[in-house]
């Protein structure tokens, strides 16, 4: 996504007489990234501090003289260079107050532009196509200048720029001759000149704007036609040397802009990065009128990413420096900061990004101060202590932190404790963007080793990785099963809590394991304290045995609500003391905690039911008993519970009861142990049905109340009887 931020006005503009001319010749960078050198169309050069919107200095030539080329900054000598009256080159420093007193040199031919770029010497491009380095020109100003472009054939320069690529320095300029457009690429040291012919657009219209950028050792030339087409041509930096004659320049259509009615008049396109183009002076695709929008387009997806309406006349100029767009419009020069983020399908579907492909070996762990000082993941007190510890340790050892690759190597061979330590250190200082990838790789590596080496199992390191919340099941599918295998119930709980994408088969496997595990095995396991205290509260609440708000759970009601269907005395005997039955949780506390986690795991019914069939009858009955227990608890005092972040909801419980019954109905009907349970469950259903029918009745009577008012008769005459008391 790209964003255009709120802009600000750098300076006001003087309106020029002719509508097509801009008030600004050019904007160039200074040695300071916050400076901008603005050359106006007549006589003045002004240096602005952009963030303060404040002029720092201004220089003007005498009346009668004219600046013919935008001032540039010589990054090597920290001087400004400008050309006045085509032939006079002036050089001055920021301290100089008057341009007249500055250094002047008159050259023998008309200058088109002076170009300068950081890392390169300024070059002078003459109107007839010759190129000289500024230094060498100034040492002999009156040296003869050859003609590259023939005067007779009226080939004139339309646009030029220079590009410094590593050691190479290029001057690019386009020319127009009889409706044909050419691109000249002048390479300096050694000097070579290559001429390309631009493919002709159908409308024969000249390109409105050019923009060149260097990318991957190629010069990308982007140009915009009035019909809204944006083409890109690529010229290799290490181009074929010595090709004679005019080459045809291949082009590719990057973008077709909606131009609305007519053609674009004064418009300009500039490439922001490989995927984004800023276009000024075009109509907004959804706003009908006016061609005065600044838009950022994504050329990969052909989508409009950001737009901003520019008030006033736009003269088709836009400069782009260091994340800011400079757009003269109306009576002002606006500076609009922008930001382009990489947009890719992969980033949209982040989870699917596979660590193996996306990450190159060269990824370097850059320690972040933020993480070091404050800790980045809000993981609770333990984590802060950890990071503090590791910090201390790092200090004492003063050993450089290991990179991900190093840790990965370590995992392959290192002992459990060291692996844990290093993983913790890595994760706690990990940079948030990279974390997801490295965590995935680390987890996979750990799991892989554990699978190979049965003796190796690093619960601490894995738990730490899961807790980063950067991991999901699909990233490391074997992790949860491994944890089950090693009876690492704490890790299982963490995974169930934090993984959003556990397949139903794995959920069922967990369920089966949890139900099957003997209570004694689990009781000593340390689990997440929140969920444990919730369960403790739930069990304890039952002990009080009170009824809330006049509600009596289904079992109490059973006799009264349906006496005819309860004829069997033994069953009656059974329920002599239903409260007693309620008190006992059918499973142990920790087991219950684990089961709760299963209850809260997301699932889809169709996929879950087949796997539920894997459970055997005693397991199903036990689980149902537990569900019944928790249901009754909830019915009793769900509102008195202390609010816990994670606790199974009533709906989840009932859904699971339904699922289990669906999956095992025939088995349960046949099983003698399940009889009482089933009848209890039936009474649940009954009580629910009764509740809903009562609610329905209430709804009905409330609606009647509604109807009562307007039902008054409005006849003109009636005989009624009233009763007074």
């Amino acid at each position: 996504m790209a964003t255009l931020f709120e802009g600000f006005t750098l300076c006001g503009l003087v309106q020029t007489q002719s509508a097509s001319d801009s008030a600004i010749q050019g904007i160039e960078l200074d040695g300071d990234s916050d400076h901008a050198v603005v050359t106006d169309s007549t006589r003045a050069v002004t240096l602005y501090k952009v963030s303060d919107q404040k002029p720092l200095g201004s220089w003007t030539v005498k009346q009668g003289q004219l600046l013919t080329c935008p001032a540039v900054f010589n990054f090597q000598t920290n001087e400004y260079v400008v050309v006045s009256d085509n032939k006079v080159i002036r050089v001055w420093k920021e301290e100089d107050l008057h341009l007249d007193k500055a250094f002047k040199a008159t050259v023998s031919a008309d200058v088109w532009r002076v170009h300068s770029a950081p890392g390169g010497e300024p070059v002078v491009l003459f109107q007839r196509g010759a190129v000289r380095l500024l230094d060498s020109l100034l040492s002999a100003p009156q040296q003869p200048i050859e003609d590259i472009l023939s005067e007779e054939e009226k080939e004139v320069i339309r646009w030029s720029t220079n590009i410094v690529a590593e050691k190479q320095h290029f001057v690019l300029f386009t020319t127009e001759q009889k409706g044909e457009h050419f691109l000249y690429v002048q390479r300096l040291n050694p000097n070579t000149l290559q001429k390309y012919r631009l493919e002709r657009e159908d409308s024969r219209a000249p390109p409105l704007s050019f923009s060149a950028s260097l990318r991957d050792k190629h010069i990308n030339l982007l140009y915009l036609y009035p019909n809204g087409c944006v083409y890109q041509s690529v010229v290799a930096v290490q181009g074929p040397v010595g090709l004679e004659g005019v080459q045809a320049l291949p082009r590719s259509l990057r973008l077709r802009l909606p131009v609305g009615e007519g053609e674009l008049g004064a418009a300009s396109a500039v490439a922001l990065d490989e995927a984004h183009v800023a276009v000024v002076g075009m109509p907004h695709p959804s706003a009908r009128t006016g061609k005065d929008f600044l838009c950022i387009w994504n050329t990969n997806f052909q989508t409009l990413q950001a737009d901003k309406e520019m008030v006033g006349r736009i003269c088709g100029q836009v400069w782009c420096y260091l994340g800011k767009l400079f757009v003269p419009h109306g009576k002002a020069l606006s500076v609009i900061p922008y930001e382009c983020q990489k947009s890719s399908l992969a980033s949209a579907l982040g989870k699917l990004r596979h660590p193996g492909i996306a990450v190159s070996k060269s990824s370097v762990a850059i320690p972040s101060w933020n993480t070091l000082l404050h800790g980045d993941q809000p993981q609770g007190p333990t984590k802060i202590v950890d990071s503090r510890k590791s910090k201390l340790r790092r200090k004492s050892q003063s050993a450089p932190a290991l990179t991900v690759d190093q840790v990965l190597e370590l995992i392959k061979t290192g002992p459990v404790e060291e692996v844990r330590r290093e993983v913790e250190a890595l994760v706690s200082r990990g940079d948030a963007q990279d974390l997801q990838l490295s965590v995935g790789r680390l987890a996979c590596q750990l799991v892989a080793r554990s699978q190979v080496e049965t003796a190796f199992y690093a619960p601490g390191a894995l738990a730490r990785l899961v807790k980063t919340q950067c991991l999901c099941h699909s990233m490391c599918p074997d992790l949860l099963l491994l944890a089950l295998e090693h009876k690492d119930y704490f890790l299982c709980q963490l995974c169930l809590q934090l993984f959003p994408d556990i397949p139903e088969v794995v959920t069922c496997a967990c369920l089966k394991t949890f139900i099957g595990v003997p209570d004694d095995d689990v009781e000593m396991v340390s689990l997440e304290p929140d969920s444990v205290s919730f369960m403790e509260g739930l069990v304890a609440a039952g002990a009080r045995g009170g009824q809330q708000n006049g509600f009596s759970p289904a079992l109490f009601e059973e006799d009264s609500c349906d006496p005819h269907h309860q004829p069997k005395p033994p069953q009656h005997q059974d329920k002599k003391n239903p409260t007693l039955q309620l008190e006992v949780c059918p499973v142990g506390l920790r087991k219950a905690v684990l089961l709760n986690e299963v209850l809260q795991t997301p699932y889809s019914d169709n996929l879950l039911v087949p796997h539920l069939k894997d459970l055997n009858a005693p397991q199903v009955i036990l689980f149902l008993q537990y569900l019944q227990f928790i249901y009754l608890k909830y019915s009793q005092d769900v509102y008195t519970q202390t609010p816990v972040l994670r606790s199974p909801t009533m709906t989840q419980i009932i859904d699971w009861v339904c699922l289990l019954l669906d999956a095992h109905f025939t088995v349960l009907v046949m099983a003698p142990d399940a009889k009482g349970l089933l009848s209890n469950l039936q009474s649940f259903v009954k009580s629910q049905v009764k509740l809903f029918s009562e609610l329905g009745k209430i709804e009905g009577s409330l609606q009647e109340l509604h109807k009562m008012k307007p039902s008054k008769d409005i006849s003109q005459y009636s005989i009624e009887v009233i009763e007074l008391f």
Partner: protein
Amino acid sequence: MGEFKVHRVRFFDYMPTAIRAMAFNAHTERLALARMDGSVEIFNFTDHYFQEKVIPGKDSRSTESLCWVGGRLFSAGLNGEITEYDLENLRPKYSLEAYGGPIWTIISNTQGTQLAIGCEDGTVKLFEVLEEHIQFERNLDRQKGRIISLSWHPSGTHIAAGMMDMIRVFDVPTGHAVQRLLVDRGFGGSKSQETVVWSVAFLSDHTVVSGDSAGKVQVWDGHTGTLVKTHLVTKWDVLALSVSKDESSVVAGTSEGTVIQFQFIAPTLHQQQDKEWVRTRTFKNHTHDVRALAEIETAIVSGGMDTHLVVRPLLEKFDENTEMAEITLAGFDSVLLFFPQRNLVSCAKKAGLLLFQFPGQLELWRLGDSDGHDGRNTVNIVDSFQTKGSDHICCSALSSCGGWLAYSTVSCVRIYRLQTDNNNISITKVSKLPKALRSAHQLCFSSDSSKMFAASSQSSVLVIALTQSECKYVHTLKPKSGQQPIHLMTTSVDGKWLAAANSDCEIRVYNLQKLKLHCIVPVYGSCPSAMGIHPTTNNMTVVHADQQLFEYSIVEKQYTDWSRKLQKQGLHNVWLDRDTPVTHVTFNPKNPNQVVLHDMHMFCIIDQSLPLPDQKTQFYNQMTLRSLSEQERPSHLHAFKICKTFQDLLCVSLLDDQSLVVVERPLLAITSQLPAPVRQKKFAT
């Protein structure tokens, strides 16, 4: 207590007419109100907004403006006449052609010596107020365009006149226009329309406030003629302005039905000197044009197209000594006066006939018979009388046997003989009436229909004997003193007593056998709003505008024990807090303990045999009683049995067959007949 059969009647298409003008007399605290049909009503603001007097309208009369001069009331209208009203005889005293075309407004100076009117022909005419008459004095400089509104400077030297597109300020002694204030037109499409300055107010500091058809309230400097401030308050018209007595507040009424208050206050606490007119509050009590406004000491009174009069109390102006309880009771609720506080319905108790009085006609209906098959009985309109002439009916009466019908306008009285045979009613006008019977404020028949009583001028009552063949003048019962018109009259069933109450709160009881005054009921400070004489005991029940209830024994010439007990214990607060007066008192012939009363929102049967409610008792207890068992009920009973099943009541009467007649006029039906408002309230706007 038992069941009642109720004839619920909703076919009385009574339609009040829109309020056009208003004038408040701060001295007497009377509000005069003019309606579109030319009628004028006088409300007594010291006595619970009781509608004291009604002067019936006339077809040709259209009142545009009202004006008090001392205790005298003047009106002017588009018929070009100035009218002074005779408030004692409830009729126009005289009308005077002003010869200036339709008159838009009439004002008086503070001294009460001069009247000024604004005419269609562009003149402001001054009249001198004389003892018994007014006399044309002179014209001020004639202007082009009509004079819509006028306001006299308190000093009497200047008059501001609202016209089309401008306001003129006149110097009264010279008669010259000294200032010309141009009023901007509205925006957009209304630019081509002239702006009508509907209302102006001239304050003592020479500030002129104007309200115009472009929706602006503007404040001008009257000395320099410059605009000081413009408040754009509505998209439609600002129709009325009213200034408070201390000139610290101005209210403006708009076509949207809002009343907007402006106050002359300092914008900040620190700069108490630099006061300006600031828009402060908006009241929305009307759905239609607010045509008439009066800002009085404690309230804003407004009325307009939607026909009801609203008294909106201003909380902060309450006296600080007033108890908080009173403020909360009266502080926020606007008093809405919908119906005339007198009888428009006469009921023939024996014959089951109803007579409805409209301004220009009468309707006679017969109630259906409950013996009918499906209980949905037909009611046939018997006749509707178009009155002759253009005067509106001021009162009407139907004898209880249904044999006689009488009505009166300000100029004549008509009596008709009704004869029923087989569902057909034939009507014959009684041709020869006694000369003394010229007009009546109230009419009433004796219960045996042998006599008719007509309240005439100066609280006198004419007694007319009715026989099959003729009407004969018998006597005039004339009090020694008393000027005010009689607004209530009632006779006893045995034909021995006649009681008449006038606006001075005097109730006189006459002995009809001796044809002389029997006694005067002790004068109570509030006007009686309804009274009735008990058929068996001859005790008279009187209800006053302040909701107090008395029972007076005519024979013993003293209040009865029950009445004393009631006064001693005091009426229940809920009863006293009602805001509409009781307009009817009848009795149950079968049960002498029961008195039937009603106001607009409820009817009440008082059972004198039951204990009186004290303040702690639940007053509206019918629902509670209904839910109690037979055994528990007696301990919860009290004397006031109130039924709110029927709303917007015009009449509740008990027929001789014990069935109740309830005449309702739902306000919704009235509202639905009004023209569409300019702006409808939409949710969240």
